[in-house]
């Protein structure tokens, strides 16, 4: 079980700048402070250009901060870590490997013995309901099934953090709802800390214990909303609608601000 109030991820005064091809320095993220607890489910949401993908890439160690610090379990993040697995919108599956082969990849990279790796991979495929498809290749699967393979591949190595970058954005509405419920079930069963980037308000409120709303130019945290509803959440209930309305109003504010800024800069 998760111990209450033990900090998993700590971002302090985080800043990230990029230099464009024209030599212009752009600030993608500015003075971000955030503490994420062990076992917490946090959603990052915001309009495009708010730096939510940059933020999750920093946590994954794919990019380095320009300023400030980012630490996980009290240790500074220096690069990608097998304990912190990223899940991409376009799945990142290896098309030449079967479903089983894809789930095996992480275990093989860790040097787990062949027999044990196979057993663990099959077990994880069972967990996501894909044990029947283990010998199929990714191109034979639907988008939702592909993403479940990617989730199984991540869970097989028992990571302490799942970093999910708009994982369900490419799916149809039904698959998306189904996978949201699946993800909640897996989260409750396995207890990893989950950082979930989305641009879908309903998705953020259905999943996150906290929803971090971000604003663009420069990317920053606008507001953090605590969603004090227990899982599973009934999407049609009034309290759900209340949180939705609150987030929506804030979101509109951010959007108007961004439009004004754009006008001023013209």
């Amino acid at each position, binding site marked *: 079980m998760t111990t209450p109030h033990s900090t998993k991820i700590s971002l302090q005064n985080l800043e990230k700048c990029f230099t464009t091809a024209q030599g212009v320095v752009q600030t993608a993220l500015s003075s971000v402070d955030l503490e994420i607890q062990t076992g917490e489910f946090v959603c990052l949401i915001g309009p495009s250009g708010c730096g939510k993908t940059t933020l999750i890439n920093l946590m994954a160690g794919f990019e380095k901060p320009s300023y400030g610090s980012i630490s996980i379990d009290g240790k500074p993040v220096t690069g990608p870590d097998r304990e912190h*697995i990223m899940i991409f919108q376009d799945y990142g599956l290896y098309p030449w490997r079967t479903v089983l082969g894809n789930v095996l990849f992480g275990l093989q*990279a860790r040097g787990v013995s062949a027999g044990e790796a196979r057993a663990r991979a099959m077990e994880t495929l069972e967990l996501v309901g894909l044990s029947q498809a283990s010998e199929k290749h990714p*191109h034979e699967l639907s988008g939702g099934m592909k993403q479940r393979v990617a989730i199984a591949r991540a869970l097989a190595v028992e990571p302490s953090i799942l970093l999910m970058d708009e994982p369900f954005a490419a799916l149809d509405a039904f698959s998306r709802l189904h996978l949201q419920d699946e993800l909640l079930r897996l989260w409750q069963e396995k207890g990893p800390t989950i950082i979930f980037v989305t641009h879908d308000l309903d998705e953020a409120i259905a999943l996150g214990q906290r929803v971090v709303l971000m604003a663009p130019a420069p990317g920053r945290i606008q507001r953090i909303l605590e969603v004090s509803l227990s899982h599973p959440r009934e999407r049609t209930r009034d309290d759900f609608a209340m949180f939705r309305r609150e987030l929506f109003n804030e979101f509109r504010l951010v959007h108007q601000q961004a439009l004004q800024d754009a006008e001023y800069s013209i």
Partner: protein
Amino acid sequence: MRRFTSLLLSALTFLALLGTWHIAAGLRIYPEYLFPSPLSVAIGILELFRSGDIWQYVLVSMLRFGAGYGAAVILAFPLGLLFGRCLLLWKAFDPLVQVLRPVSPIAWFPLVSLWFGIGNLPAVVIIFLAAFYPILLSTVAAVRNVPSRYLKVAANFGASRGKTIWGVIIPAAFPQITVGFHIAIGSAWVFLVAGEMLGVRSGLGYLIIDSRNNLRTDLVIVGIILIGLSGLVIDRAMGLVERSVKRQWGDA
């Protein structure tokens, strides 16, 4: 049914070509020994079959081709992997490759024959030169085209350098690399005859040169037909490999 129709069409074209050729030869604009009829070419083929020389010609050429092409793969493929992964190194060598690539292997003839004398080696070197650049360039391009998220996933799971190269980069680049290998087969086979005109006394190229010297134009045409057919067989075989790779990768 459609397959049958297309087969019928190509058979008709072939027969029409044979007929035209037969009539043209019958007009005797050139004497028979300069412009042989299809019949005498057929007799020539039978002659080679009966003496058993035909297998010798084809086999020797295939072996030389295999040696030259194989050497090109062994050298160009790892080099392509290296250049594809190390941008700085590729920047250093790219201009050199771009200058050497358009040079026809035939331009190397004088040097190749001076350096490698006579025998199998000059022909092998010419085929090597013809295959080397397409393989190198397609491997570099294929490696550079490997989607970065494949590499991110590998890094994320802590895959070793070896596991990343053998388990991710090579398989990810493989479909595009086989296309390059396929193209290289075509362009290298074209230079087989040229290579075999350099001081060898066997093979399909030699059959053509030798037959010309003996004024056996029927056998010159036999040589041309054999080169075309063997090239077709190799190309189709490589095409099968390419397609099965694509099917397994899910690109087809």
